[in-house]
């Protein structure tokens, strides 16, 4: 009797595990098909570029405050922490290098990406989800207008274009923050700060790789945000959980992709 119950419990557990795995895989497949469909129907987003410009405003310009302020503070903290460590080895002039490389290679794309996911990604998901819940998406289909071309693609491309620009501004602001703390507050030599930074930061190795990262994060966040919005259950709870999923999934995606990209970019570079 007990054995039978145990077997039944095991079978149920396995079924649930299998069910959960297949539904995840199915969803991933659906998201990929959605991505392909969106790329194929991106013509409108570029032909009528004002639609995309509007989304760059909402995703990019409106995220400026949080990006610039966070960048400034992250840079200031890097200045303090970096100085604290470097001065033990008597190399506090290298503070410029430390601040710039940390920001350009890692913190700029990653932190800007995380902030972008919470500020703009969640807004995109909520907007598309609410458009679905209030039948605006259905109305568009009924008017023989493809909502993926008209609503989704411009938001996706708006996000993809905004993200690298925001990451660049984040890094620039961070370097300025590091300069304020290191040079103006603590008194590191200004010439050393800038000249060492200039000598050590490589365009191809550091800056271009940072830009590549931010583009990849932009694609990931924008894709997740538009997909979650489009796939949201058309109810208040549905939109709310889709918004949460956007932030959680894009944050994890950014961190995981960052590891993979870093592994490819910098191990190869250092080895050579």
């Amino acid at each position, binding site marked *: 009797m007990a054995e039978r119950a145990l077997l039944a419990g095991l079978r149920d557990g396995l079924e649930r595990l299998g069910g959960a795995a297949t539904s995840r895989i199915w969803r991933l497949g659906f998201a990929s098909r959605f991505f392909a469909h969106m790329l194929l129907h991106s013509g409108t987003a570029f032909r009528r570029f004002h639609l995309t410009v509007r989304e760059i405003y909402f995703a990019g310009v409106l995220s400026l405050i949080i990006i610039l302020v966070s960048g400034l503070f992250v840079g200031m903290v890097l200045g303090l922490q970096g100085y604290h460590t470097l001065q033990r080895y008597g190399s506090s002039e290298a503070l410029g290098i430390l601040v710039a490389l940390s920001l350009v290679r890692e913190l700029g794309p990653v932190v800007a990406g995380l902030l972008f996911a919470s500020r703009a990604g969640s807004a995109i998901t909520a907007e598309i989800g609410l*458009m679905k819940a*209030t*039948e*605006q998406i*259905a*109305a*568009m*289909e*009924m*008017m*023989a*207008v*493809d909502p993926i071309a*008209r609503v989704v693609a411009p938001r996706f491309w708006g996000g993809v274009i905004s993200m690298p620009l925001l990451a660049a501004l984040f890094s620039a602001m961070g370097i300025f923050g590091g300069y304020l703390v290191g040079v103006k507050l603590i008194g590191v030599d200004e010439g050393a700060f800038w000249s060492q930074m200039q000598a050590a930061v490589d365009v191809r190795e550091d800056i271009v790789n940072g830009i590549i990262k931010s583009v990849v994060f932009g694609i990931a966040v924008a894709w997740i945000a538009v997909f979650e919005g489009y796939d949201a259950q058309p109810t208040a709870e549905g939109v709310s959980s889709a918004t949460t999923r956007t932030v959680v999934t894009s944050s994890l995606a950014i961190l995981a992709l960052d590891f993979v990209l870093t592994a490819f970019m910098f191990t190869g570079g250092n080895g050579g």
Partner: protein
Amino acid sequence: MSRPPIVEIEDLSFGYEPGRPVLHGIRLRIEPGTVVGVMGQSGCGKTTLLRIIAGWLKAQSGRARVLGETLGALDEARIFALRRRMGMLFQFGALFTDMSAYDNVAFQMHEHTDLPPEMIRDLALLKLEAVGLRGAAHLMPAELSGGMARRVALARAIALDPRLMLYDEPFTGLDPISFGVIARLIRRLNDSLGQTSIIVSHDVEECFGIVDYVYMMSAGRIVAEGTPESLRRSEHPFVHQFVHGEPDGPIPFHYPAPGYAADLEAGAAGG
């Protein structure tokens, strides 16, 4: 001499999941120029039927011809082409909330035509004038009352002069004045623009006042049809209950449940 029907449906069945049909053996025929009501309780499948006519859902069996096209055999491009000849008013209007009333009405003209901007402007104002809201052209949907939003949505639906208008519960949530305004507009636009209209609704009085013919649905089947007068006199138990709004009849007041006494006893035993 008789013109072909605008909508012709034969023996159509549909279910969202296999084994759980929502519509069974639907037959209907809608003549050009008429306003036809599809009435029934919430959940009886009438909105599903409207979505099949709009080419949104594909029937599992049966035949449906709309505006001369056989549905089910059409690819997406041809369904989109068919929809350009249809207009639909959604239950709560479904106006684009990020656009003004004017931009909502002009939306389809921008998307589907190459008309010069001045002409689009004139046409959009003409449509807004037809629903009495030319003066509200610059307002955003959030600034419109429920009845006004519904009228703007109506102006948007007729923007490209559709031959077939679909109304999904057009009276839901309106005050009595807006109710009457929308009802009269539906009839007037239908007759003056030479449209054919299908109204899915459960508002007996308003609907009976403007339609030429009614199909009554219950549990996914058409249970009665006729002119409003003939249905008012009908002795069919469901039609009688529905038209006169009686709480009990073939549609029971109580949701199916085990015996009340048994339920109470179970509660007492549990406590």
